[in-house]
C-alpha cells in the first residue's frame, strides 16, 4: 500500500509524462519524414523548415499571425476533443464552423437594419458570437439526437451534414446574404457593424481577443470535463456507456449534450473568425478545418491543454507555410503531408514506441464501436 499523498502526486504526474512523449516524438518523426520527401522532390529541407520557422515565429508580426491561425484551430480542436471524450466522433466540425460563421455574420450586419438602430458593442458582439454558437449547437445537436434516439452513427451523419451545410452556405452567400454593394462581385456577406467587431489587441497586429478567448475556453472546457458532474457524466458515457446507464446517468441526454457542446465550440470557431478577423463571411474560407481539427484533437490527446499546444503547432505550420513557399517555392501541400504523418504516428503510437523503444503502455482511446446500426 503506497502512501496516498505521494501516490496522488505520482498519479497526476505519470500520465502527463507518458502522454506528452508520444505526440512530441510523432511530430519530430513526421518532420523528418517530411524532410526526406522535400529532399526527394528536389527541395532543400533545411531551407524549407527555416522558412517555416521564420514565417511562424520570426517576428512579432509572424507570431501574431500564428495566433490568428491557431485561434480557430483551438476552438475546432476542442470541439472534436469534447466529442471524443463523450465517445463520439465529430467529423462535422467543418459544417458546424461554416454555419457558425454565417449566423454570426448575419447578426453582425443585418441586425442593426432590422432593429433600425446601432447596437452598442457590449450587446451586439455577444449577440453575434452567440448566434454562431447557436448555429453550431444546432448542427451538432442533430447528429447527437439522432444517435441517442435511433442509434444512427454520428460519423456518417456529420459527414452528410457537412455537405448540407456547404450547399446551404453557398446558397446563402450567392443569394440572400450576398453583399449588395454594386462593386462587390464576390460571394460574401456585407461587412459586419463596428459594434459586432472584436478589436485587435495591439494596433497594427491582427492578433485579436478571440485568441485570448480561445485560451480561456480551453481552460473552461478542461475544468468542465474534469471538475464538474457534467464532465464526469460525459467522460463516463464515453468510457463505458453501459456502466453509465447502470449508474443512473442519462446516456441519451449526455450524448446530445456532448455533441451540442462540440457543435457550440465549432460554431464558436466560425463566429470568432468573422467577428475577430474577417468582419464578414466569405465563401471558400474554412476549407479543411474539419479534418485538421481531428488531427489536432488526437495530437493533443483530447486534453484541452494539449489541444491548445497542438493548435499552435498547426497554426504555426499553416502560417509559416507562406514564408516557406516564398523562400523555397516548395508547394504548401507538403504541410498537409506532414500533418497527415503526424496524425498517422499519433494514431499508431505503437510505431513511435517501437522506433524510440518506449516501454510504457497506455490504454488506447477507443472512440468507435462500429456503426452501431
Amino acid at each position, binding site marked *: 500500500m503506497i502512501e496516498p499523498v505521494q501516490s496522488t502526486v505520482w498519479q497526476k504526474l505519470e500520465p502527463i509524462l507518458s502522454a506528452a512523449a508520444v505526440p512530441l516524438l510523432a511530430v519530430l518523426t513526421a518532420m523528418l519524414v517530411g524532410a526526406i520527401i522535400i529532399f526527394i522532390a528536389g527541395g532543400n529541407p533545411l531551407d524549407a523548415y527555416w522558412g517555416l520557422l521564420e514565417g511562424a515565429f520570426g517576428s512579432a508580426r509572424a507570431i501574431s499571425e500564428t495566433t490568428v491561425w491557431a485561434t480557430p484551430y483551438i476552438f475546432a480542436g476542442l470541439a472534436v476533443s469534447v466529442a471524443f471524450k463523450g465517445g463520439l466522433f465529430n467529423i462535422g466540425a467543418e459544417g458546424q464552423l461554416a454555419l457558425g460563421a454565417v449566423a454570426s455574420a448575419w447578426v453582425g450586419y443585418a441586425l442593426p437594419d432590422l432593429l433600425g438602430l446601432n447596437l452598442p458593442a457590449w450587446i451586439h458582439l455577444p449577440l453575434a458570437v452567440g448566434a454562431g454558437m447557436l448555429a453550431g449547437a444546432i448542427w451538432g445537436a442533430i447528429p447527437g439526437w439522432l444517435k441517442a434516439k435511433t442509434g444512427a452513427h454520428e460519423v456518417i451523419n456529420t459527414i452528410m451534414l457537412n455537405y448540407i451545410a456547404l450547399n*446551404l452556405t453557398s446558397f446563402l452567400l450567392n443569394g440572400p446574404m450576398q453583399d449588395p454593394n454594386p462593386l462587390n462581385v464576390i460571394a460574401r456577406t456585407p461587412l459586419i457593424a463596428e459594434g459586432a467587431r472584436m478589436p485587435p489587441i495591439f494596433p497594427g497586429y491582427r492578433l485579436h481577443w478571440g485568441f485570448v478567448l480561445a485560451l480561456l475556453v480551453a481552460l473552461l472546457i478542461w475544468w468542465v470535463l474534469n471538475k464538474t458532474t457534467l464532465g464526469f457524466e460525459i467522460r463516463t458515457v464515453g468510457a463505458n456507456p453501459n456502466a453509465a446507464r447502470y449508474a443512473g446517468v442519462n446516456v441519451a441526454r449526455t450524448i446530445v449534450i456532448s455533441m451540442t457542446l462540440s457543435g457550440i465550440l465549432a460554431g464558436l470557431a466560425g463566429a470568432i473568425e468573422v467577428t475577430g478577423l474577417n468582419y464578414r463571411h466569405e465563401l471558400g474560407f474554412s476549407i479543411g478545418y474539419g479534418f485538421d481539427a481531428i488531427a489536432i484533437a488526437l495530437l493533443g490527446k483530447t486534453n484541452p491543454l494539449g489541444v491548445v499546444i497542438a493548435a499552435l503547432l498547426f497554426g504555426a505550420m499553416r502560417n509559416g507555410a507562406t514564408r516557406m513557399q516564398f523562400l523555397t517555392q516548395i508547394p504548401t501541400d507538403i504541410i*498537409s503531408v506532414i500533418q497527415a504523418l503526424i496524425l498517422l504516428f499519433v494514431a499508431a503510437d505503437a510505431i513511435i514506441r517501437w522506433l524510440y523503444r518506449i516501454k510504457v503502455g497506455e490504454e488506447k*482511446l477507443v472512440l468507435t464501436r462500429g456503426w452501431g446500426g
Partner: protein
Amino acid sequence: MDLRRFGFILLIIVILIGVVVLVGGKTVPAGTIIASMLATTISVATPLTLGAISGIFCERAGVVNIGIEGMMLAAAFFGWFAAILCNSIWKMPAMPSLLIGVVIAILTGGLMGLLHAVLSVTYKVDQIIGGTVINILAVGITGFLNRQLFFEKGSIFGGQVPHAPGVLPRLPIPILADLPVVGVIFRQQPIAILAVVAVAVTHFVLFFTRWGLRTRAVGEHPRAADTVGINVIRVRYANVIIGGMVAGLAGAYFTLESVPSFEPLMTNGRGFISLAAMIFGNWSPVGAWMAALVFGAAQALQINLQFFRQQIPPAWAFLQQAYVVGLIPYILTMIILTGIIGRTTPPAADGVAYEK
C-alpha cells in the same frame, strides 16, 4: 434479401426520373429524357458502386473503412500518372498505357488497403481514425506530387501537362446497344461494366463461397471463427486489401475512363457518398448498387433541372437552385440511417479490433 428496401430505392429512382420527364416533357420527348437520365445515372453511379463494394469487403470482415475517399484519390492519381508515363515518356500506344494505368490504380488502392489493415488490424488503431489518416494522407501526397511532377521546376514534363492517352473506349453490347430508350445502358465503358460485374461477383463470393462464409464469420463473431481454425487476422488483411483494390478501380474511373486528367481533390467526396451507399444498401452488394443508382439519379436530376430551368413551373421555383437539389442524396442517407425504412444492421463485430 430485404425486398422492402429495394422497392423503396427503386421507387425513388423512378420518382427522380419522373420529375424530370414531367418538367421537360413538353420540350423534349420523354424517351430522350429517360435515356439521358439513365446515361448520367449510370456514369455517376459507377465510382459510387465500386466505392461501396470496397466498403462492403472491409466491413463484412469487421473493419470500418472511411478511407475510401483517400484510396480513390490516390489511385486516381497514380493510375493516371502511370498511364501518361507509358504513353508520353516511354512512347507506348494508348491502349496498353491505359491498361497499365488501371493496373497501377488497383495496386495503389491495394497498398492503401494494406496501410489501413496494418493500422487497424495489427496496431488496432481506432478504425475511423485509420481511415481519416488515409484520407488526409492521400490529399497531401497527391496534391504535392501533382505539383512537383507536372508543374515547372522538378517537373518531368518540363512544365507542360503531357498529352494524355485519352480514356477507355466504350464497349457497346451488340444488339442491346441499339435498343431505343434503354440502349444507352448497354453502351458503357469497361470500368462501368466492371462495376456491375463486381456487384454480382461480390454477392456470389459473400454468400455462396468458402471465402464469403469465412469473411462474414470474421465480421460477425471473430472468436468463433478463430476457434474453428480460421485466421482472423489474415482474413481481415485479405479483405481490406481487396477492398482497397476495388476502391483503386473506382479511382481509375476518374482519370482513365471519365476524363484524361487528374485534379487535386477530384474525387470530391464521392468516397463518403459510397460509404453512405453501402449503409443505405445495408451492407449488401445489390443494395449498395441500387443506392449508388439513387445518388446517380439525384445527380442527373440536378443537372437536368438546370437544363430545363425555363420549363420549371414557378410554384416549384426552388428546384432551380442546384444547392437545393444537391441535398437529396445526403438527406436520403440520413433518413435511411434513422431506420425508418428498415433497420440497417452492420456486421456485429464491425469496427472492433480482434484481441486474441
